[in-house]
């Protein structure tokens, strides 16, 4: 209750300050703006700011829901589309592109996009299809006090993390110094994708949907994922990102690779044990096997405009969203996300993501069949991680499951 009250109050204050601090929105023309987005703080903030554009002849409605991925394709397929704006990320834009449900934004950018920076434009085949406004990545969170006690410097690679975990366990500082979101499903597959991106390997043979992870890099990735579990709570297969966040906050974990978007929650320290937050350091994601690329995927969040809507609605929606991600909004809320918007001064919660991006991490792949691979990984790696299957069999299973799905999906 107290938490809810606090949230309500802070949201209220946020709305008030947002209302007074930002320049008026002033949309040209009229239209209806209907936003569909995922549900986390930064996106709710963008939605609220865009809602300020409601005026005579302009209506703004926003639906922030964790089910957005399941809603977006059917909602944008109908004509007129249920939503005029779909807020997406690297992976969720793919189904929209595959079914041709979003419109090129070049005209709108030229007309209303003066505040946007060139690197915010997601260009596909020379056409701007989305406007990115924030970045996200998993990166290393570690407890400086524990590492100091064990006499270890900041780990830069998974090999150093394993050595550090061994030392911490041997010194009796912690039983389970590591944690990772290894829950079978989306999380476990993301762990594989992350680690594999740290090797120099490619997921697919160039120019085709033929899977190419059945190699040394794939084996190395699985070996590493399994080696880490030796230092994890035996229930590691049931922890997702929120689960390891809670374990870390409780003081049970010394090092974990966790989402940058949860750094704000961590540093706010709600429910954390004494001394955990004060000693937490955020830094770049680790590298693997002597490589130089951080072993994580970089993500962007951005907005797209539906194809099946009138040009007036599209223009109004674009302007409202540009207002929603305006430099003024970002200047007033620097700690909420790692914004990609002009004039953003990274706060303490963004250092990990920025360090990871600067170290040259690769973006989450946008191939149309990447979703199929993610699903295949999410179901087939569980047995390997549980220790009932060897790495080669696991990779062969992933390939078989992916091939089956890709044939059904028409890619092979």
């Amino acid at each position, binding site marked *: 209750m107290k938490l809810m009250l606090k949230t309500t109050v802070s949201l209220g204050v946020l709305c008030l300050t947002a209302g007074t601090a930002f320049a008026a929105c002033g949309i040209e023309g009229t239209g209806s703006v209907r936003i569909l987005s995922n549900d986390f703080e930064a996106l709710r903030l963008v939605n609220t700011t865009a809602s300020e554009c409601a005026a005579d002849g302009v209506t703004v409605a926003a639906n922030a829901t964790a089910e957005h991925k399941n809603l977006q394709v059917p909602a944008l397929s109908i004509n007129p589309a249920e939503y005029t704006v779909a807020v997406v990320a690297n992976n969720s834009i793919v189904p929209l592109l595959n079914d041709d449900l979003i419109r090129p934004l070049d005209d709108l950018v030229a007309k209303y996009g003066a505040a946007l920076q060139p690197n915010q434009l997601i260009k596909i085949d020379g056409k701007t299809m989305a406007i990115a406004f924030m970045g996200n990545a998993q990166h290393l969170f570690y407890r400086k006090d524990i590492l100091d006690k064990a006499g270890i410097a900041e780990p830069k690679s998974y090999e150093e993390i394993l050595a550090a975990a061994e030392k911490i366990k041997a010194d009796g500082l912690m039983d389970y110094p590591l944690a990772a979101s290894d829950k079978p499903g989306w999380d476990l597959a993301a762990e594989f994708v992350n680690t594999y991106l740290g090797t120099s390997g490619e997921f697919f043979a160039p120019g*085709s949907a033929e899977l190419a992870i059945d190699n040394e890099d794939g084996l190395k990735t699985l070996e590493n994922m399994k080696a880490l579990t030796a230092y994890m709570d035996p229930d590691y297969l049931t922890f997702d990102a929120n689960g390891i966040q809670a374990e870390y906050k409780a003081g049970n974990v010394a090092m974990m690779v966790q989402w940058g978007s949860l750094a704000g929650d961590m540093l706010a320290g709600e429910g954390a044990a004494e001394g955990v937050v004060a000693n937490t350091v955020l830094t770049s994601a680790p590298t693997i096997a002597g490589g130089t690329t951080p072993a994580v995927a970089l993500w962007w969040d951005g907005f797209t405009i539906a194809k099946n809507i009138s040009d007036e609605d599209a223009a109004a929606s674009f302007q409202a969203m540009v207002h929603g991600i305006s430099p003024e909004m970002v200047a007033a809320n620097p700690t909420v996300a790692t914004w990609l918007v002009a004039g953003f001064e990274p706060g303490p919660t963004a250092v990990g993501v920025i360090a990871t991006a600067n170290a040259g991490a690769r973006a989450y792949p946008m191939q149309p069949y990447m979703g199929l691979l993610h699903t295949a990984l999410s179901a087939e790696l569980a047995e390997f991680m549980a220790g009932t299957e060897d790495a080669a069999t696991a990779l062969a299973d992933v390939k078989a499951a992916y091939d089956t799905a890709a044939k059904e999906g028409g890619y092979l």
Partner: protein
Amino acid sequence: MPHKTFFAFILPSLIAMVLFIALPIVSVIVQSLHVEHARVLVEVESCQPFGGCTTETRVDTAAMAELRAEKPMGQFNGLGTYLNRGHLAVNEIGAILASNNGFGDIATRIYNLPFYKALSFTLVFCFVVTPLAMALGFAIALAVNALPKVTKGPVIFFSLLPMIITPLIGSLILYWMIQSNGIIGASLQHLFNDPTLSLRASPVLTWASLLFYGVWTNAPFSFVVFYAGLQTVPGDTLESAMIDGASRWERIRFVIIPHLAPLATFVALVQLMDNFRVFEPIVGFSAEANATSLSWLIFNDLSGDAKLFGSAGATSVLTIVGVIVLLMPVLIRTWQEFNHKVV
């Protein structure tokens, strides 16, 4: 009743059954016979905030729209989806049977196929939970029936609680309790003096917890039905049995159980159907690593970035077939009893 009146009487429900039961099933069957059109892929340059511009593969949406306009259902695939690795895995099974290192190897490799893995847990769940839940429900019914009137109400309400609680919430509650810092998990660790004991990590213990949950949540249904049945047991027969010197156990064995047998058939039928569709506890217990079910396979096909409607349709049809096969003995028995009565 004249045939015409009878027909007019059931027509509304007949229409509703066709609309809401038969047609959706037909649509699922048709869907399961189709797969997506072969995608037309093109190489385009794509630019992102990180990493600059790269050449990437994309779907040629204009070409795909033409294909879809011609054939909106996608390509006809016949039984291809049913026979592929995600379902009956005919080729894979053939290969396993052709070259293997004995029975154990065959079992492990077949269990490694997603459909058979899900089927094994589903069947074990069905055949362990149904009889145990019925036995437990029957025991509770007997116990409640013997209680004084005043206490009956509260006890019945308490016994029905597992059925009232939403399955997902019920499984989450138990899941939290068996965590190593939950009350059951911590007690077990203390009891067995093994700090690494985890009900969630080992496949056997995960199955055991799921089965335990299944019995807990299914018992109240059997209890309600059997309790209602107990009220119809003829008092005269019981009394005469007592005069003949029958003990309580003998009265249960030779009077009550035969009297309730038709009811038991009905309960078994409903419970088998229910348990074959086991889904919520797997999600609630985060047990995907160690236990999957047919319903979970369908859910897995339809969630995520790529939705495989054909695959989900095929699994649904196989589930329906499974339910029919399971119920066959019970249905045959009912049919025989019915005929017996008529004669």
